[in-house]
């Protein structure tokens, strides 16, 4: 059940499967579920929610880790030192 126990072939399939699901959701949105009450222009763009999910995930994690490494993170016993 753990990451190690997933076979390599299974691990290789995660990205294609998730990508396929995402594409399918975009198609469903385009054909069957356009924005119910669009307010901004991009509400008409199919898949913008998926784009926000994936895009902001990559940007937030990479930027935060960078700032963490450079400035914010300290060894665990940092608080106890004087």
């Amino acid at each position, binding site marked *: *059940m753990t*990451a190690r126990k997933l076979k390599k072939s299974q691990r290789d399939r995660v990205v294609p499967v998730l990508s396929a699901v995402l594409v399918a*959701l*975009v198609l469903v949105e385009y054909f069957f579920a356009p924005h119910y009450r669009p307010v901004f222009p991009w509400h008409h763009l199919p898949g913008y929610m998926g784009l926000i999910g994936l895009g*902001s995930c990559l940007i937030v*994690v990479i930027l*935060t880790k960078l700032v963490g490494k450079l400035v914010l993170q300290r060894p665990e016993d940092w608080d106890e030192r004087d």
Partner: protein
Amino acid sequence: MNGIEIHPVLPLLIGAALMPAINPAGRRWLALLASAAALALLLGLPPDWRQTVTLLGQELSVARVDMLGRVFALAFTIYAVIASVYAWEETGRAAKAFSLTLAAGGIGVVLAGDLLTLFSFWELLTVSSLFLIWQNGSKQALAAGFRYLLLHLAGGICLLMGILLQWQATGSFAFETMRLAGAASWLMAIGMLTNAAVPPLHVWLPDAYPRATVFGTVFLSAFTTKAAVYALARAFPHSEPLIWLGACMALYGVIFAVLENDIRRLLGYHIISQVGYMVCGVGLGTGLAINGVAAHAFGNIFYKGLLMMSAGAVIYATGRGKLTELGGIAKPMLVTLIFTMIGAFSISGVPPFNGFVSKSLVISAAAYEYRPPIELMLLIASMGTFLHTGLKLPWFTFFGKAQGAAVKRRVPTSMYIAMGGAAIICTVTGIFPNLIYSQLPMEMEYHPYTPDHVVGALQILVGTALGFWLLRGKLGGEPTVTLDVDHLYRKPIWLAVSSAAAAAETAGRLAGDARKRLGAEIVALFQPLMQERPPLLSTLVLVIMAVLVALAGMLLGYVVIAGS
């Protein structure tokens, strides 16, 4: 329902007062009965029930049960019942009593009919939280408790000064909608924003909550922040600064959660993020937004409680609470894993759980008010919520590479019952949103389960999952602590306090035995309230602070009264 119109905090306060006189087994039942009685009394109150008391010639409106307060009070009382079941194994006198007074403080705030009543229950929240944090008895909990107290005393003083200035200007303690302009309203707002944990006034939350006992944290996570959200929603709806503070807060919480390794601290940052949605909704102030605030607060109390309960179960069973020390316990802790996932899906807004039906209200309200950056910030915060509580936390706690964590203690049935109760509420109110929508204060026409909402939510979640999988090597916990803004002032304040203490020490030595005797008396006074003998220095600082605060309050009151 005539005849039993009693303020719901009363059974909680009586229960807390009786706690020391009762044996440990009885305390469990007393806590449960007092919470259940509060719930029953609340349900029995007629709509728009009010109660006034005259004290020292001042008429106090101790209860005002309108729709806005009622939905918060309903969540608080139901949650108090669930948390009392969760804490069945906890039989400590002080822990039991202060968990009841904490609930009383929260319920008192959301039912307060005027500003003086609000302030009294506000301080009851602070004091109860402090002693609950101290129940852990560790050195870290003691220190975090003092830091908690300093910030909340400062916030409380701001609130009090604001209330007195308001009284000076208007001659009334009415707790109604105000405009966020001028010293009085800003001082009140700063006091409320401190308790709502709005950055940079938030540091007490991730600092203190994870240091309480597993039972203490479960109580703490529900009341203080949501009571403050209520106060903001009552006093300052439709305030531009709150929109931006809330949206930034929603992002701040998830960004700090990226770096967090301690599971309860990670959840603490997510409280900040979720309360951000609520503060933002208060700022937007439309009917839809205020309903979103109330619905999200209601949902948050249960899904965040469920997550804190599951994290507590992991810590209780394994004795470990860090991502880097956990992993590989999915099989032995399968039930806890399922409850964690229900809480995680709820907080992430996965349909059909309750986060989906409440978060959408606030995000839609931002869009309908033509605020593209706010909508975008809240959507990114949704991504971060799912990334950390829906993927990172369960993956590295239960799956991931085993780091030698093992189940050493069986999780008690009482904890499972409580988690089950919270999980049922999260699921049922998600599937049948009208259960919550019908309790909300404003009229609205809103359908969460339209195809575009559901597909949009699923797109965000799948996109986030894809990002998680691509970056999973980077996302594991790291054995580090993260500096937050408190480190900008913690060292300087500590230096000032220790030099003042050194000076006092020198002066005190001259006074000789008298000082020692006084110190021993003060420590003896506080000792029953703590698990561990408190250090003399900290206790003295506490007493001095309390005296200064009382003096400042009296002085201010005098100035205001003399000036009017």
